């Protein structure tokens, strides 16, 4: 377990739970939930903040000493918009980590694989550390890692839907084949969903709505942190295999000696 490290772009990330900052009832609640989650990577929508303004209400509530700020391009409809947003954000803030989101449909917010790949190829060349949000498409995941993205972030189900691992089988393939960390993102609505994703072998999970919209976001953040840790421990330890027949813990023929 001690050697089980999550490394992204050469940086060791202590927590396998990443947390989003939208939908909270206040910046104070958000800050408390972040703290309770133990997260190190915190994603923030560029549309919601003045990234160049350190006094921006939301940014001011996120301790930059404690958290790695991961700006996202939520709202971008195509490659061009994502590029423009990413470049402006980096120029204003100096942050070169980027969660790349290209979601032309404002309703289900499903990612556009083609535009995401195009943007990722350009941004990686420009020196960005790119963490792309994608549909659970194993081939796209390979293309992105070939392009040099730091992770792939397949969705479990549509953003904010809380439906859990609707794309489980494809995510399993991505996890099996990926050469970069796999962060399961979007749709994880319960701590048990997060634990399940981590048990499958995901390197990390990203959660926002399920924490922010909970009756007690702080307690829920803690629950997700424990779930992510439990799931990872189970994966690393190696859960007992599932058998079709019973395997008695006290065998009836145990008295026989060879």
């Amino acid at each position: 377990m001690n050697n089980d490290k999550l490394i992204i772009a050469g940086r060791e990330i202590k927590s396998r739970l990443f947390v989003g900052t939208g939908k909270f009832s206040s910046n104070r609640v958000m800050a408390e939930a972040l703290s309770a989650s133990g997260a190190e990577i915190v994603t923030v929508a560029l549309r919601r903040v003045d990234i160049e303004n350190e006094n921006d209400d939301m940014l001011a509530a996120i301790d930059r000493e404690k958290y790695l700020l991961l700006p996202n391009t939520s709202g971008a409809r195509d490659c061009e918009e994502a590029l423009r947003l990413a470049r402006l954000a980096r120029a204003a803030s100096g942050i070169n980590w980027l969660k790349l989101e290209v979601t032309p449909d404002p309703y289900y917010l499903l990612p556009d694989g083609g535009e995401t790949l195009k943007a990722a190829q350009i941004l990686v060349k420009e020196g960005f550390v790119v963490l792309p949000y994608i549909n659970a498409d194993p081939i796209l995941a390979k293309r992105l890692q070939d392009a040099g993205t730091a992770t792939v972030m397949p969705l479990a189900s549509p953003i904010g839907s809380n439906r859990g691992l609707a794309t489980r089988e494809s995510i399993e393939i991505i996890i099996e084949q990926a050469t970069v960390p796999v962060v399961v993102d979007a749709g994880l609505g319960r701590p048990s969903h997060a634990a399940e994703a981590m048990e499958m072998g995901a390197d990390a999970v990203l959660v926002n709505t399920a924490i922010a919209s909970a009756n007690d976001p702080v307690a829920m953040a803690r629950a997700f942190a424990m779930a992510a840790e439990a799931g990872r421990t189970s994966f690393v330890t190696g859960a007992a295999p599932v058998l079709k027949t019973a395997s008695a813990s006290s065998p009836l023929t145990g008295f026989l000696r060879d």
Partner: protein
Amino acid sequence: MNTKTDIYSVLDDTGIDTRQDEYLSRIQSVTEADVRRELAIKPGHFSLERLIVLLSEAGGAFLEDMAQQAHALTLQRFGKTMQLYVPMYVSNYCINRCQYCGYNADHKFNRSRLTMEQAVQEADAIASAGFRHILILSGEDPKHIDVDYLAELAKRLRSKFCAIEIEIYPLDTDGYKRLFDAGIDGLSIYQETYNRRLYETLHAGPKADYRYRLETPSRAARAGFRRLGIGALLGLWDWRLETLSLSVHAAYLMKHHWQSQISFSFPRIRPAQDVEDQPYKHIISDRQFVQMMLALRLCFADAGIVVSTRESSEFRRHLMNLCVTRMSAGSKTNPGGYAVNKEAVCQFEVDDKSSPQQVAAMIEAAGYEPVWKDWDPAFTAG
């Protein structure tokens, strides 16, 4: 599947305004059991049949159940947030003669239009109150407010606001394209009433062209506009039939212009200068207003739901917990009302006269975060 590809034909096919009695009778015949069945279905999806049930009198007895579902759905989709925006009127010149409007061309009063410098000064006053989302409005008179003016104004405001939207007279697609290129990417336009015959009797001037107005959001979407606000002026026609028509329009826009986000507004007729207190037969009660809003949310999970200062502060405070996602605050409905000409004539009287800070405090007290910025000029090339 309806294969018609223009909204006019799609709406015409429904016959909501030509076969009113048939629809009213269908609404009337909805039973309690129908409503229970509908409320047992996962909310957020639209069909005309479903909306008929939710808008019915029988549905009105289930308002609390509808409210609980709408609240939960909105919380899931939008979180505990309320986006704030502010309207800025730049002109009250108008060439139309709409019976219900204070800007009616026949009304005699000193009309005014903000010069570019005045508009920027007005915008500065608005920005200093903390607003980052601005809606530019004007009376319908292309001679006084044209595309060049709006494009120039948008360029001047881009550094002050994160999103610039318009509520003006309908333009052609090229006009919208020019505005989009200048950094405007949102539009609100109300059909006023979806009842064609009634529409004809209420409007004179260019606005009398029902179809051109109806197709406006589509032209804006084709030009790249990302936010399309639609609505009907509540009080002109039966609110249930108006809502059914509005929903058909919304569903059409979502299907055919899938990259634009739809939002609903609920403007109720308000007193206005020189407009008699006409005996509008269809004034909508608070209860009906809420039922309309909830029914739309239960059919359109991700649509924006906008409430303006036409409504009272107290009423808005309660609406917040239902399914509203966006509110105006501190609104002035006269050109220059914020700074440069506070005496100019208003389009209508606002009810909620709270300051932006008071509205924000009210939102916070209700357990929501007032969101001043939820977009970025970087999205538009401008």
